[in-house]
């Protein structure tokens, strides 16, 4: 993107903008207008500073950190303290688990959310995976698409698609377990999809 590659910009926007929006929305009390304003600020700041991003943290982590700062400023302008609505993943321990999703799953969060929060954490976990992983899991288990149909969307052959789905399942299992060990307790996640 720093070289002016338009296709790179489109890939960045398609992969990160929806996830950024989903990250921001619940932290702004569900206000679509405020979420759009904050996302616009975050994306603008990211575009101006992208040349300085050196990869110390993942791009998503970097965006989310900018977003946290913008949200804090937003609530401060409104005369309210930041993090008015503490989300499960904003618990420092949970946030650490989220941001090191591929690392040691022994760093467990220390609080368990309600059932609705559990299900929201499913979506949070999916958003932290590589974009194709989350999409592939939704297409297969929610939309009921076949491996061939998923492969067409990803421009991959069926064998590569099966392999990606297997990796996605493992990554999701690890991510969700790290976020919500109590929620995951007793759920015998199959490493292998019993219904390929």
């Amino acid at each position, binding site marked *: *993107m*720093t070289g*002016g590659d338009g296709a790179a*910009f489109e890939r960045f*926007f398609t992969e990160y*903008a*929806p996830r950024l*929006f*989903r990250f921001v*929305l619940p932290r702004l009390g569900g206000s*679509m207008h405020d*979420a*759009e*304003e904050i*996302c*616009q600020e975050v*994306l*603008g700041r*990211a*575009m*101006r500073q*992208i*040349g300085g991003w050196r990869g110390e943290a993942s791009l998503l982590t970097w965006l989310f950190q900018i977003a946290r700062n913008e949200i804090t400023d937003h609530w401060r302008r409104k005369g309210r303290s930041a993090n008015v609505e503490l989300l499960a993943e904003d618990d420092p321990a949970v946030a650490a688990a989220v941001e090191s999703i591929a690392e040691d799953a022994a760093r467990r969060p220390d609080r368990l959310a309600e059932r609705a929060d559990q*299900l*929201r954490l*499913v*979506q949070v976990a*999916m*958003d932290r995976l590589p974009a194709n992983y*989350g999409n592939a*899991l*939704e297409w*297969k*288990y*929610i939309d*009921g698409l076949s491996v061939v149909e998923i492969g067409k969307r990803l421009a991959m052959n069926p064998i590569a698609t099966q392999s990606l789905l297997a990796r996605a*399942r493992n990554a*999701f*299992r690890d991510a*969700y377990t790290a976020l919500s060990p109590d929620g995951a307790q007793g*759920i*015998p*996640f*199959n490493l292998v*999809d*019993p*219904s390929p």
Partner: protein
Amino acid sequence: MNTPQDPLAELIRAAGHRPEPSAEVMGRLRAGAHAQWQAGLRERRRRRLFAVAAGVAVLGFGALLLSVGRFSEAPSIVARLTQAGDHQIVRARPDADVLDSDLLGVGDELRTPASTGITLAQLPQGTTSLRLAPATRLRWKSAERVELLAGAIYIDTSHGAPGARAGDATANPLVIEIGAARIEHIGTQFMVTRRDDRTEVRVRDGMVRVTLGDESRRLVRGEAALVPSSGEGTIETERGAASGIVWQWVDGLAPRVPIEGRDLLTVLKTLAYEAGLELRFARPGVEATARGTTLHGPSLDLPPRDAMRAVLASSDLFIADETRADDGTVLIDSR
């Protein structure tokens, strides 16, 4: 088919699809992010060139000040007229005749007659261009702040030589004041019109921030804002075409586009940019055909859309659907 023995699948199904922002929201976010990305690219390019140009710029500016004859007393120069035409400059200082007739200083007011508009460039970089509609009065409060007293202005912060995209918003900040309202650009083409009861802001490309008191709204391409002239009330936003009849006076002051020796694709991109249209090609290969077609002839002295038809008439390409211009796009196809 998913079997009940797959708890992972059950969990994902129970959670449901992750919510997606609407296409409208995504469109606005994309437009805003793209504008900022382009501004960032230009800023980095400008910094690389600045080290080389700095010494030359200092010498050149010094020579300009000396040429007006009164180095220590000349007012700060903020703009230069770029197109000859009827106009009146009301100088802030009666003794400011030291300035050349095509230069404006801080405090000067530029007025256009009822019949014609005029164009000028913001100095010192010269890469932000302004077009004043007929019956417009614009006063320069400082190098980066103007007050629209009457009429309408159009600002293009990306404009250098025709077809080029020199300069950037951060290096050429410009704030337009109208009563209590303030309009700031963030790398864009936009128009501001002062009417009796309201001010209209229309964005052709990029992003603009409109502020009235504590209220601030961000506009991107295809959006418009209405600001009450009284300064009381709120900013209303609405959809606004980036091309069409409301932009007619702007298009009439578009710069002449040279074509000699240039390829058709580059010329079409320039004209589409000036017309506020997105250029699309009906089929693969059409764009390549445009790139491979070399034009010859004098510069086009036509409004951008008419110029587009003129250059296409000499080729095998044509505008496939004129009505799409109402949607802000122009579709090119081959015969």
